[in-house]
């Protein structure tokens, strides 16, 4: 059986960064991803089947067939496919959602870490303060902004404490829609700032700046100016020679010894073969839903209801992503 210092389950926003950091620190890493490594052409340009508008499918996994989830509400249970909104899909490909995202790079505000203290806990809610503060997290925000590459203007982020360092690149220039929004906000007297974006406004990290091509969120970047883990930390992990990336690998469960220690993982590779690998450490970074599924599917004598689940909290308290929107008609083309 192969042995690694660390096995990372999920090559997305979290796992990709862990892989890069550990591999460059000299650790032997196995990075498992259930999706595939997708080229620009494979992500494609289908406006009806992408991770932004998934009318009839999507373009960055999970595959529509063979990856069902059960959605449950007061009407009962229904099986939903990956491009159904109720599935709450994260892209399943090398880079995860960062392969196709729009790349907004907001820091949380200090208040976000203390919502329970500031606003109180609504009845029936499990809202709690974070165990860390903005000040503790701030250096890591800065590190991520520089290593992955964010364009913005720190001086204009007036809703946050002053930054220790500016962003590595100036803001991406505004398009027509952005200029329209900015003029509207100014007319209302609203304070505004450029959106920090994980998009190169100029050449950075050996890749070019944005060409303003109108083909962005939901898709891959034609000139690779959009920064995800696939072209930063995962690329660095692979370049270090210390990381094996296996895509198309679906992890069945985390292996646990009789003493209750995690010893590795068991996964199915792209050919369907069952593979067992051992490691000192297993990092579960498969997204909120799949990480919980994997932990619940990994039982042992000590933890018969899943790893870390002796208090029945794994997979509970899932917070979805709330998207408010507005539609308007303008007299001039925007």
């Amino acid at each position, binding site marked *: 059986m192969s042995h690694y210092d660390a096995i990372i389950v999920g090559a997305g926003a979290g796992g990709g960064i862990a892989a890069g950091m550990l591999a460059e620190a000299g650790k032997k890493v196995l990075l498992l991803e259930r999706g595939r490594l997708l080229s620009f052409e494979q992500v494609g*340009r*289908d*406006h*009806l089947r992408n991770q932004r508008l998934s009318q009839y499918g999507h373009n960055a996994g999970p595959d529509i067939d063979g990856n069902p989830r059960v959605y449950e509400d007061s009407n009962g249970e229904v099986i939903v496919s990956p491009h159904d909104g109720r599935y709450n899909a994260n892209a399943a490909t090398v880079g995860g959602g960062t392969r196709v995202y729009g790349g907004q790079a907001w820091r949380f505000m200090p208040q976000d870490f203390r919502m329970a203290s500031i606003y109180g806990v609504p009845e029936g809610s499990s809202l709690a303060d974070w165990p860390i503060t903005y000040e503790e997290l701030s250096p890591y925000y800065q590190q991520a902004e520089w290593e992955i590459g964010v364009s913005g203007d720190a001086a204009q982020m007036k809703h946050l404490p002053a930054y220790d360092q500016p962003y590595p690149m100036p803001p991406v220039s505004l398009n027509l829609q952005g200029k329209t929004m900015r003029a509207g906000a100014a007319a209302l007297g609203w304070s505004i700032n450029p959106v920090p974006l994980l998009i190169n406004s100029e050449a950075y990290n050996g890749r070019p700046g944005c060409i303003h*091509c*109108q*083909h962005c969120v939901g898709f891959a970047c034609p000139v690779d100016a959009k920064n995800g883990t696939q072209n930063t930390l995962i690329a660095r992990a692979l370049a270090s020679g210390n990381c094996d990336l296996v895509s198309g690998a679906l992890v069945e469960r985390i292996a646990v010894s009789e003493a209750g220690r995690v010893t590795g993982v068991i996964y199915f590779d792209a050919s369907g073969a069952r593979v067992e690998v051992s490691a000192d450490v297993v990092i579960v970074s498969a997204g909120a839903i799949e990480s919980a599924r994997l932990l619940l599917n990994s039982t042992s004598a000590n933890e018969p209801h899943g790893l870390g689940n002796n208090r029945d909290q794994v997979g509970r308290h899932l917070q979805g992503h709330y998207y408010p929107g507005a539609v308007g008609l303008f007299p001039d083309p925007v």
Partner: protein
Amino acid sequence: MLTPRQLQLLQTLVNRIIPADDDPGGWEGGVGAYLARQFEGDLKAMLPIYALGLDALDRESHAVYNAPFDRLPTTVQDELLARIEAGKITTAWPIDPVLWFRRVVDHCAEGYYSDPANGGNLDAVSWQMIGFEVRE
């Protein structure tokens, strides 16, 4: 399959949802070709719904204006469609007219604006109109 009569109604309807101006209307811009292809694919299950809706549209037109939908002046066609969109119908529809109209509008947008590989947006006509391009 839609009957020739239903197809005629569909073409008229699509070209009121996306009327021609300096640029082609919805049908000529690719919505017809898009729907023909999608009725064999993702929208296969919608085909009978389309047939029911188009027949109901024509019955509604006869009931309100005493003429077939595609013979009405365009301003009157728009008036009738606005009533259907708001659910103000006078005949018994076998399907929800508001929902049906909304779906047809969505499908028109899909066929007219989505990438030409989906069968519509002929010669990328809508992309030229709005200045959309993907550079490589």
